């Protein structure tokens, strides 16, 4: 997009943005307490999206591949975490805090290890052979992988929703007037931010991170510099997978119920979040996730002139389309070839 000279497309985008700001402003003035409560709900939902979006963005950053299967890996690991919690530890709402903490820790480790193994396997079996094939071939394979993983979950857990008791209480941590922040929301937020910081540190500062960045820029040159490209890519998939595992458990703890196809929609939303923030950019993924979470909850929770929950999907995909059309590089992303 040419800078300086305002284009029609740019003006249209600004106009939409202005409409959204006016809409939010009116809603805030009408009922500030409700607005802030909804804001917290949206923030928490956004944090869950952000964790999934980070996985998309990591893989896209290194291979320029949309790993469709990521959402389904997330769902499968969440379901397995539910089995660990229910069948192995048998937690209920009455279980003691100690048992709950141990159970969650074990479930987290199981989910992360399993998801990263699965993700690495998918890369090894599927994508690795297609690195020199046309780009669409890899994307189509990713869609196929997504269906395979989803059907593995279907084979194990059938079509029923798996529900766990609410382990993180939703009692308030602090209350100011009618505005309240609950424990379960705090828990989700308190987990997402350190993960983002750790990831950013890892990619920026460690040798592995350096290898990842080098591989993403030029695979052949990296190989010549002595970087084991295959291992670096596997490592990235493992990292993305472990994030999907953590997100699966977190989703389960916060929403308490999931199903074999939860990952499909969540995956698409998280991918939208990654694109919104600028795919390939870690901070962007988190920003995008939180924005999408906020938009979704504002849409469903606010009173004035909201389309309502029936339209959530359309709004999220509308944003995706608008972003790709108006600003393909995303909010924080670098200019991509799509930008032109």
């Amino acid at each position, binding site marked *: 997009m040419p800078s300086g000279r305002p284009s029609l497309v740019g003006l249209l985008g600004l106009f939409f943005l202005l409409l959204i700001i006016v809409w939010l402003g009116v809603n805030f003035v009408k009922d500030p307490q409700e607005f802030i409560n909804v804001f917290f709900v949206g923030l928490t939902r956004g944090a869950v999206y952000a964790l999934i979006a980070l996985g998309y963005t990591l893989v896209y*950053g290194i*291979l*320029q*591949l*949309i790993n469709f299967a990521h959402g389904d890996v997330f769902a499968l690991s969440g379901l397995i975490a539910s089995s660990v919690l229910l069948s192995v530890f048998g937690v209920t709402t009455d279980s003691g805090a100690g048992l709950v903490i141990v159970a969650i820790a074990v479930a987290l480790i199981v989910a992360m290890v399993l998801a990263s193994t699965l993700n690495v396997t998918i890369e090894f079996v*599927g*994508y690795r*052979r*297609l*690195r*020199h*094939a*046309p*780009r*669409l*071939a*890899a*994307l*189509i*394979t990713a*869609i*196929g*992988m*997504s*269906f*395979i993983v*989803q*059907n*593995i979950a*279907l*084979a194990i857990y059938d079509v029923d929703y798996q529900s766990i008791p609410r382990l993180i209480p939703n009692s308030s941590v602090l209350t100011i007037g009618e505005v309240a922040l609950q424990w379960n929301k705090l828990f989700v937020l308190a987990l997402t931010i350190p993960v983002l910081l750790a990831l950013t540190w890892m990619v920026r500062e460690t040798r592995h991170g350096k290898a990842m960045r080098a591989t*993403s*820029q*030029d*695979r052949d040159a990296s190989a010549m510099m002595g970087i084991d490209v295959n291992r670096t890519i596997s490592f990235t998939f493992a990292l993305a997978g472990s994030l999907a595992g953590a997100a699966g458990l977190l989703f389960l703890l916060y929403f308490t119920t999931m199903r074999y196809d939860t990952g*499909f929609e969540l995956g*698409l939303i998280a*991918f*939208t979040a990654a*694109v919104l923030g600028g795919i*390939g950019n870690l901070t962007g993924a988190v920003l995008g996730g939180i924005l999408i979470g906020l938009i979704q909850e504002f849409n469903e929770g606010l009173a004035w002139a909201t389309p309502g929950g*029936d*339209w959530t*999907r*359309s709004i999220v*995909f*509308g944003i*995706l*389309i608008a972003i*790709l*059309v108006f600003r*393909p590089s995303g909010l924080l992303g670098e200019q*991509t*070839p*799509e930008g*032109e």
Partner: protein
Amino acid sequence: MMTEQQTPQQRKDEEQRLQEVIAQRTQRSAGLWRRETAVALIPLVLVIGYAIIYPFEAVYTTLREIPGIGDFFPTPGSAVIIIVFTMMAIGLNVVVGYAGLLDLGYVAFYAAGAYMAGWLASQHFEQVTFHFWSPGINPELPGIHINLWIVLLLAGIFTAVVGIVIGLPTLRLRGDYLAIVTLGFGEIVPQFVRNGDNFKGFDLTSGSFGITPIDPPGFGDGLGDGSGGLLPVNFQRSFDAEQLYYWAALGLLLFTVFCCWRLRDSRLGRAWIAIREDETAAAAMGIPLMRTKTWSYAIGAFFGGIAGAYYASFKSGAFPSDFYFNISIFLLCMVILGGMGSIWGVIIAGTILGWLNIEGLGVIGNYLNDWFFEPVTGSRIEVPKYQFGIYGIIIVTMMLFRPTGLIPERRRKLEMEEGVHDEPAMGERAVNR
């Protein structure tokens, strides 16, 4: 060749000689043409002939009773659905196979076509009573009732317009971004029709109930046999309704195949293939990228719309629950299995997968359960439940081991072997572009 020094006699001789040569060549090439075409046409004629006689009760019941393989022959009713989905796959093949644009939201076109049939050939709009050549329906009946043959055309045009509307803002994008945007549209359209029952009190789509019933096809009073004509007045009321639906679907399929086959060799078709092979080079050779791509969208959508409208009429309803993402993937799977760009391949893959979807998985599941699962594990598994897992396996296997499909298109095969493609495969980040 003819210089001024030539005498009239010489000129005459020359002309005569030339004419003889031309006559000889024409004759020879005509003979050649006839023989080659005849040989090439034999399988085609056999296949079409078989397809035409298939729905006669004597034929399909005999085939279905053959021990061992009888279960592999669908009923004519199932065959209609197979044909309709194959037709959509051929439409999708124009976008994915010819132009190389991955469309993950083809179901939106199917939905647009189906709802067009719902609007123009049912009692949905009770506010008005409009009949145009309706197939033997009481003219007092409220709603818009236009003859389905016209509705099919209108649905195709409407869907093509939808395709252009979707295409114009998005076709600027390349490769996977485009795929995602089409996926987005494929998700928005079903939600739109599901929620479209109350726009300021106006009921556009009847919400999640869908529009039903939809008028069947027929030739009405003018051409129909009720008033002295030969053609059926109304398919639904005929004794051999399923056969009529089948033949009409087959006719539509042949029309689609013919159009797509001729399009491939047209100027437009060659432009699509050029874009598929190398977008930048195509643009440099003067091919208008946007217009050519938009045409591929519009034409692919056109056939999807016709198929959708016809299917809605066959099912006598357009329901939002029919239009989900998996349908797009199912159609994509047909195109991939058959071979992107290969019409024959897509027809064969469409028939196989369509059959698997409707009857085949149940049949194969029963075989597997009888011969393997029940004796070995003691329990039966429900194979059709895992249909999309199976399609996923097909997609991945094809992409890994035979990316050109069952019957590769010659050109596509060369591209795959020689590696002609504009996108760097899983490319590095394009820093300097």
